[in-house]
């Protein structure tokens, strides 16, 4: 009986892996480093993780998880509160409305699809922030951040894939 209960608790904890790993990856990439080029092309790790888990583990990563991650990103950043929530919810809306297009595709296809989804999210973020400050935010830096996010997606997907295979495949 006890063994069964322990297993149940362990399985419940395993279900939290997508959201926990997303938060930890986000925080890791916020750590200071001495690469000056990096600071101008900060990638959006939350975007990569949200996209990956919505495609590869939607049963453990729902609307609430997307909202929580967006809220955390907002609270840690000096961008207007709520912007990151909206940006990530846009990804959720796109994926949930185009299920047929996104699911069960090869990695190349999902990667290129990510480039479109991330571009839409970045543009929406840029528009909202520019309206909020009543001033256009520099586009060149946003493009650099977008490129970095696109390039880093395979690495983030690899890490998340490892976690998924290791912990979530047994459940």
């Amino acid at each position, binding site marked *: 009986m006890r063994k069964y209960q322990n297993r149940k608790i362990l399985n419940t904890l395993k279900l939290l892996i997508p959201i926990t790993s997303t938060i*930890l990856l986000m925080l890791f990439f916020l750590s*200071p480093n*001495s*690469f000056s080029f990096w600071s101008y092309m900060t990638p959006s790790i939350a975007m990569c993780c949200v996209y990956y888990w919505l495609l590869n583990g939607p049963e453990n990563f729902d609307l609430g998880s997307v909202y929580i991650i967006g809220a955390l990103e907002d609270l840690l950043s*000096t961008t207007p509160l709520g912007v990151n929530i909206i940006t990530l*919810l846009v990804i959720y809306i796109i994926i949930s409305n185009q299920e047929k297009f996104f699911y069960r595709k090869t990695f190349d296809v999902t990667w290129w699809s990510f480039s479109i989804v991330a571009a839409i999210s970045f543009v929406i973020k840029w528009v909202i922030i520019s309206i909020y400050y009543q001033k256009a*935010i*520099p586009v060149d*830096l946003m493009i650099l*951040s977008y490129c970095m996010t696109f390039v880093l997606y395979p690495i983030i997907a690899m890490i998340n894939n490892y976690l998924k295979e290791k912990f979530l495949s047994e459940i």
Partner: protein
Amino acid sequence: MKRDRFSFHFNNLKSWARKFATVILILSAFFIMLVGKSDTIIVEKTISLTMDVVTPIMRVLSIPAKAISNTSDEIKNSFNIKEENRRLRIINDELIKWKSEAFRLRIENQNLSDLLNYITPPEAKYLTAHIVAEESGAFAHSVIAYTGYPNNSKKGQAAVSAKGLVGRVDKVGVNSSRVILLTDINSRIPVVVEETRVRGILAGNNTSMPNMRFIALDSEVNVGDRIVTSGIAGVFPPGIPVGIIKSTESGIVKVRPTVNLDQLEYIKIVDYGLKGILDETKHIITEKEAEEDKLKEKELEKSKK
């Protein structure tokens, strides 16, 4: 029968809520944006609490990131160690000359101050903090610094490094503070050109070079001029190095900060005893402080009577 009808309505409501959940959440995000703009106590406290929870995790996570950057630094330094040595010898020779000059000027300054009966301002108090998180890029430029407990920093205080101004404290938690860098779009710092004394406001624009704005039309501003804080508004003391004018093309004065904001490891949060906008934080007082204030007021009234 009644129960069935209730469960039917409940299920209907549930499916309706699920359908419109995304819309509701997006609307709630816009609502949060409006609340955030008003900078209420709830927002302030939530951000501080999040910072306090996240800071210990960030400290652990920054260890591998720091190790990677240290290794890359060592490799980089080992390549130009000879050049660095030569450069440092030249600087050292110059500094020795300046040291004797500084001694002479200090004595002269002391003598003149005595003659004028000049009262020296109180010395600043420093709080050294370790950077545990940095955010930069197109949308925001800020850092989270681990100050330790108790956190004696206050909103609005200046954050400096060895070379000059870094930014100002924006949010204060129990063991951490968030500093808005001078390149951030929210940053506005009253500055002055050191030689010509032309005043202006250094406005961040989320790029590496903030703009100096609100300069008088006929004022003389040249490339290479040093910019320091003007001390106007009473937040920062005058004379902290801020940057150097890099270009003045088509009326836009671009300033390169003296501090390399990409490679910050430690900052000093400075309490100069100035109030300025710090008074705005007076509304964020705890119940205990409010009670203490009331007691003090009562005592004052009694003593008057």
